[in-house]
């Protein structure tokens, strides 16, 4: 394991251009960033600001046009089991039961059947789905599916969770519950989390650190630390103050993008 003082994830000089027809679109201007081990970072920004692109580059699904990503000091060359992605649309394997989905990663590592079974059982329990272990994804509610997706990457020993608007498609009650559960899991496992959202409230509730992204081209325009004690009380004046300042910052980015003036 790498020295705990070195950052867990380093994003160094990453840019991304997409070929669109004959032209090129600059999705990400230069991004430099370091994430500490066990940090909970939220990427927040208007749609099209490149926050999902940045997440997909960290995951290794896409290559940066320039620059590189270092995890524990080693450059990322493709998807790897140290970085687990949780997709908004779950991306569970529909032909596998809950337990088989969760056991998929351990099985790919070549563990024996009893070992895979033990790990899968443990993580099925971790996300409170013991009663649904043998159901198929199409028999689950959205919240249950997302629990499976989270357990699936944790069971594979991912120590970086990349979450792409994971609760965006859920109803408000389920979302609140899953936010709460995610914080519990994070508190216990101390994995590093990069969480993409466009909800100011969600970022203020979850994050140690909020990275506000600006658009056209996408870039990190603000890096705000949130030091509120946990569990956070969403009705407290302190929480409201944080939320308001985040909202102002985000609104500033959006209007700045509209008038095409650089932010200082």
């Amino acid at each position: 394991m790498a020295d705990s003082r070195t950052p867990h994830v380093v994003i160094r000089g990453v840019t991304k251009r997409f070929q669109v027809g004959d032209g090129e679109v600059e999705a990400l201007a230069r991004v430099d960033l370091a994430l500490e081990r066990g940090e909970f970072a939220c990427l927040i920004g208007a749609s099209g600001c490149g926050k999902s692109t940045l997440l997909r580059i960290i995951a290794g699904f896409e290559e940066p046009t320039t620059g590189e990503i270092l995890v524990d000091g080693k450059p990322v060359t493709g998807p790897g089991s140290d970085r687990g992605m949780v997709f908004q649309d779950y991306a569970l394997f529909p032909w596998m039961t809950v337990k088989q989905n969760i056991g998929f990663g351990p099985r790919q590592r070549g563990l024996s059947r009893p070992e895979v079974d033990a790990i899968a059982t443990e993580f099925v329990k971790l996300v409170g789905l013991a009663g649904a272990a043998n159901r198929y994804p199409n028999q689950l509610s959205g919240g249950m599916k997302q629990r499976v997706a989270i357990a699936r990457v944790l069971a594979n020993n991912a120590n970086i969770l990349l979450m792409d608007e994971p609760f965006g498609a859920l109803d408000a009650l389920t979302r609140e519950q899953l936010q709460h559960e995610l914080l519990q899991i994070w508190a216990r496992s101390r994995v590093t989390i990069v969480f993409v959202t466009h909800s100011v409230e969600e970022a203020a509730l979850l994050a140690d650190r909020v990275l506000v992204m600006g658009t056209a081209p996408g870039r990190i325009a603000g890096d705000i630390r949130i030091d509120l004690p946990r569990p956070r009380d969403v009705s407290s004046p302190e929480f409201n103050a944080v939320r308001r300042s985040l909202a102002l910052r985000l609104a500033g980015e959006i209007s700045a993008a509209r008038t095409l003036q650089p932010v200082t």
Partner: protein
Amino acid sequence: MSEQASALPETTAQSAMPGPSLAKRRRTPERLRAVALGLGFPIVLVLLWDRAVAITGTRLVPSPRDVAVMMYDFTFGGIYDDAFSATILTHIWKSMTRVYGGFFLAALIGIPLGLMIGRIKFLQQLLDPTINLLRPIPVTAWLPLSMIFFGLGPNAAIFLVFLGAFYPILLNTVFGVRSVDVRLFEAAAMLGCKGSAMFREIVFPASLPAIFNGLRIAHGFAWILIVVGEMTGVPTGLGSVIMDGRTLSRTDLVVTGMIVIGACGFITDRIIVLISNRMLRWSPQHHG
């Protein structure tokens, strides 16, 4: 990571699915209705056939009664006691070896090839034009060549059935692979799945609904083609029975052969549907 695996409380899991019992109970009268309608229509057709033969007085078309007698003799013998009496099982068996010889050969080549063409661009560019050039050629057009290649006998029949079954299996498999959600490949890759495991673990199961569609269509073609296949001069088989009936002007034998082929195709199709419903339990589009 195991030390932190104390469970979260079991959560609102009840919202997911209603129990199956309610749906099943509501389905029973609907089922009976479906069976009554499905059986009623062919009975009406047979009655119309009977009346039409009686009213026109034709001797070229057998009556349902003639066919029933022929069917009895074909199955148990004891009426005409000719070359066809009590031979039904032999003919069914021979035809089935050809139908399933061709069908399984087509599946054995078509499914892996389809999986690879769907995933590997080089193979697609190499093979796609040729496949689409060969595909519109009617199987009957291959009859002379197949007799030259394989001689008179069952192999030519198997080859023709293979040709008819191959394209639906191949094309549906390719289509299945192409329609797999890219996210599933990404999810598998991030969980450490790569190389040939990707085919076994993701591409194949994810394409299975489309593959079963292809198998079912191909299986139908295989039974359709058995008559053509057995035109190649084989002495036994349901197709050759029909050919013999034609040569001997015995239309009761022809219609009997037709009915047996229809029944075999129907029953085996139900078996395929049963297997596919079982294997695709997980799929929202299939529920057995």
